[in-house]
């Protein structure tokens, strides 16, 4: 009797997975096939690799301080996006990691307050928040007004790489803190105490115990910051004074120029690079964890 009942429960539990399986095939896997399909076809839906080769071969002439030269348009755009995204991610990690640690060490009540405080800005639309940053960072903005009040003179931020990075760090900072915090909150305090007892100093505990244990959180935090910042197209337009054309801008630009197939091709290439990058990172993390 009991076995039969638990058998039916197992069935129910297996069936519980059915809607999600169907959903993920229909709305996750199939759409990606569509991206590939559009990426490899022309307007008449005939097979072509032209969109893909265009990404790697299109060139334009650029003149800057170091003279005039020919560059690969989309490779340059991609590298620039990657660079800004990596900088933002590193900054988020450097400032977010200790903060997540601080939160996890606070009393339970303070923890929930701090976590909620971190999430509050996300409830106000990010377009509006980015707009407010423009008001702060402008040459005649709040920040510079503050500086000159202190007699420190003005600095030019808006329209520079720093402004774009500030915008990205601001918008995605919570995504770094939350996963690291949730791993740290679960960390066994006894392990740290044991390490101390065994003669580890503060740095040693951090390096040998806390960091390895928090690695899964770090990995998901890095993913959750890197991915959106590599593909953003609003922050770069607003805070970069329209001078930072990133890969997200390129995709959006091709979409509005009604070049759906090329937009899909850029998206496809970006996706492949990211999937491989993340798989590599995961493997690296697993190895580290195994050691």
């Amino acid at each position, binding site marked *: 009797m*009991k076995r039969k*009942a*638990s058998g039916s*429960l*197992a069935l129910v*539990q*297996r069936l*519980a*997975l*059915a*809607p*999600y*399986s169907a*959903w993920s095939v229909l*709305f996750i*896997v*199939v*759409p*990606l096939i*569509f991206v590939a*399909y*559009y990426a490899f076809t022309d307007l008449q839906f005939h097979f072509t690799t032209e969109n893909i080769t265009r990404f790697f071969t299109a060139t334009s002439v650029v003149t800057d301080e170091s003279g005039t030269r020919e560059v690969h348009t989309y490779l340059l755009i991609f590298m620039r996006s990657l660079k800004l995204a990596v900088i933002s991610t590193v900054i988020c990690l450097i*400032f977010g990691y*200790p903060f997540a640690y*601080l939160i996890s060490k606070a009393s339970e*009540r303070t923890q929930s*307050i*701090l976590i*909620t*405080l971190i*999430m*509050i*800005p996300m*409830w*106000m*639309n990010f*377009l*509006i*928040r980015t707009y*407010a*940053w423009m008001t*702060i960072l*402008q040459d*005649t*903005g*709040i920040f510079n007004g503050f500086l000159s009040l202190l007699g420190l003179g003005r600095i030019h931020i808006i329209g520079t790489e720093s402004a774009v990075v500030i915008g990205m760090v*601001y918008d995605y*900072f919570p995504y770094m803190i939350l996963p690291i915090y949730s791993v740290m909150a679960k960390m066994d305090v006894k392990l740290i105490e044991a390490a101390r007892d065994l003669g580890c100093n503060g740095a040693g505990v951090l390096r040998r115990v806390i960091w390895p244990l928090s690695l899964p959180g770090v990995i*998901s935090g890095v*993913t959750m910051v890197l*991915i*959106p910042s590599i593909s953003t197209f*609003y922050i770069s337009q607003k805070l970069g004074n329209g001078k930072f054309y990133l890969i997200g801008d390129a*995709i959006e630009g091709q979409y509005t120029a009604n070049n759906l197939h090329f*937009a*899909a091709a850029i*998206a496809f290439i*970006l996706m492949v690079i*990211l*999937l491989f990058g993340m798989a590599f990172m995961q493997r690296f993390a697993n190895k580290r964890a195994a050691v």
Partner: protein
Amino acid sequence: MKTASRIYTALVMIFLFAPIAILLVFSFNESKSLSVFSGFSFHWYRELFRDSETLGAVRNTLVLAVSAALISTVMGTAAAVGIHKLKNRYLRAAMDTVTNIPMINPDIITGISLMLMFVFVGRLFGAATSLNFATMLIAHITFCLPYVILQVLPKLQQMDKSLPEAAMDLGCTPMRAFLKVEIPEILPGIVTGLIMAFTLSLDDFVISYFTSGNGFQTLPIRIYNMTKKTVTPKMYALATIIFFVILFLLLLSNLVDEETAQAVRAAREKKNARKKG
């Protein structure tokens, strides 16, 4: 050390709330400018409540976020339970990979991919409108699902396996054991998942941008579409109101938390006393 961490926390909070302060201040601006403060007035709040299109967009945003959060929480929790019970290693790995895809894929790709599919399928069936509320809802559920699953799954793994078994030994039917024992155990994960899904859906612009269609416009899209004309301080007023609503809820919940915490403490003391006795 204590002061150092206090200062650090304060600095982070200043960084996080600086733009919010700007929104707050300029929502009371007299003129239309978002960078020149000319005088204090409630003008934009009056305007906001008169603007039926914006209020409609707020309603749409909430309807979408709540529906997406609820559906993805139910489906995601069920999925987490199913994944947790999966014994086949390869199936498990496949599910994990699929779950990870929307998180590893940038919004812009998720948005474009869904849009391409909806448009293609819509054309296939000759539908007059293939982008509408339903497609936006599907898109939002899709990107919320992994976050729910990743919140619930760890709670299932942490749960003591003997708990439901004990319940069944005591005569519970398996279904009842699941509802009465397992669900309460993983409830914190479910609630966190729900809140995360709601937050993500509320804040999303990119995916909505590609999948929005007929007559259903959310707030982020309405704001983005103001790009030929100026974004009015009305939007700042709206953000300020949202801020105070959350703040109010926060204070309220703090009071309630305090009460529950006291109740829990009292119960624990009672139990301990009984043990000793």
